[in-house]
């Protein structure tokens, strides 16, 4: 069951990501990104992280991507021109992407035993409460970093308001 879900939604996520790159209209790209986010949410859920899945849907597909679509609609962005790309991108990008791919596959293959042995049974049978665990970590063990991050975000919001305000 889990394998079937992984294959279906993994493929959907990859297809969405490729479609995101190939589409020429910004709104179609944004919608493919929504598909990617939703498939990722299903993958999280199938791994026993239901709170993360719900947060993924509510925050990413429900709020951030809606804002993307909203801005595309508001600016009435038209279709993009297809260019051949810069020469530097070809010379630096292709070897760079190959190198990162090789590095990642090397790391995953050498450490595959450690990844494979993660025990998920207590999560999947709901003996461990996901939300309680997250709140333990967030509000007890990592309280200071969490609060500092919130203040950082608050400062960012204030900065955006200051930048957007009209000069009197």
């Amino acid at each position, binding site marked *: 069951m889990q394998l079937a879900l992984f294959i279906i939604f993994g493929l959907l996520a990859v297809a969405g990501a490729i479609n995101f790159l190939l589409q020429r209209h910004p*709104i179609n790209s944004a919608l493919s990104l929504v598909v990617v986010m*939703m498939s990722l949410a299903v993958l999280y859920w199938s791994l026993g992280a239901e709170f993360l899945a719900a947060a993924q849907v509510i925050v990413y597909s429900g709020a951030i991507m809606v804002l993307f*679509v909203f801005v595309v609609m508001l600016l009435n962005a038209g279709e993009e021109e297809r260019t051949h790309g810069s020469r530097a991108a070809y010379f630096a990008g292709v070897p760079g992407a190959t190198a990162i791919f090789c590095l990642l596959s090397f790391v995953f293959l050498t450490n595959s035993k450690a990844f494979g042995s993660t025990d998920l049974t207590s999560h999947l049978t709901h003996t461990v409460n996901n939300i309680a665990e997250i709140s333990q970590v967030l509000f007890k063990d990592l309280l200071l970093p969490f609060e500092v991050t919130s203040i950082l975000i608050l400062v960012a919001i204030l900065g955006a308001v200051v930048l957007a305000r009209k000069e009197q």
Partner: protein
Amino acid sequence: MHLSDFQTFLLLSILKIVVVLVITLTAVAYTVLLERKVLGRMQNRWGPSRVGPFGLLQPLADGIKLFLKEDLTPLAAEKPLFLAAPVIALTCALISIAVVPFGAVTKIAGVDMFAIADVNIGLLVILGITSIGVYGIALSGWSSNNKFALLGSLRATSQVISYELALGLSLVGVVLRSGSLRLRDIVAVQSTHGLLSWNLFGGFQFVAFFIYLMAAYAETNRAPFDLPEAESELVAGYHTEYSSMKFAMFFMAEYANMITVACVATLLFLGGPSSPFGSLLPTPSNSILAAVLPIFWFVLKVFAFLMLYIWVRATLPRFRYDQLMSFGWKFLLPVAMLNIIATSLVLALRG
């Protein structure tokens, strides 16, 4: 023939889904009739009264009319998105019913019969689906290539995003009280002493209830927050260019959303399918009666909410756009946060 556990689960689940879907769609059709009738009586006229006895067959006639109308698509419309938008709107409106428990826990062959899916993050699932539902409205307005439709969908999107915050925060108090996001647990906390243990009265969540009610009206684009389809300025808002069944899908989505919101309010604040009299009423010894009575209470509460919706629509004039935004951000949001602080303080002091 002997069925395995998985097969019985599958068959019963399909049965539940079909029955709930049929009932919801019928309820949607008759909510439209109810609204027209009650609105008519409130404005001192009859409302639909010609088709069938008391106009009871009016939804059928409306359905046939919408089905037989010409299905227009504007030439300059963005075709795929124009077709997808009503489908997204209706699907999202109908899916959230799946996590709503509408009766007491009644197991047949190990399957809970009165809830399609008992998910341990049921409340978050409902919030997630509501937040996805915006795409239907946003895309419909943009893909129609019409300025009124675009304005309507821009209004709808910003309104829904703004009120989603107040809506989500108003529910935190309820979640704090029950300590769970599973809707069955939230109902169980409220079903001990009938009316007095409801979150609305015993839980002192009436502020949260008020915020939820306001935010829910805005989320479903209903009066007095129906700016996205304000007919006096925007023709019909985001569905201006839609006709025939595509329009009907938007129409059904709006009423299905109303029913979902009413269901959630019933579950979170009014004790869901539990009886308002608590232990004053004797528990029925007949097992069929014991299964049906909670459904009766649930439907009664949902019906009361729908009546409130219609009453508000008949009473209040429409907000202005800036009033809508400042009401949501400057009033509802801070009050919701204060409610969270007060509730958690009380819970911490008592616990």
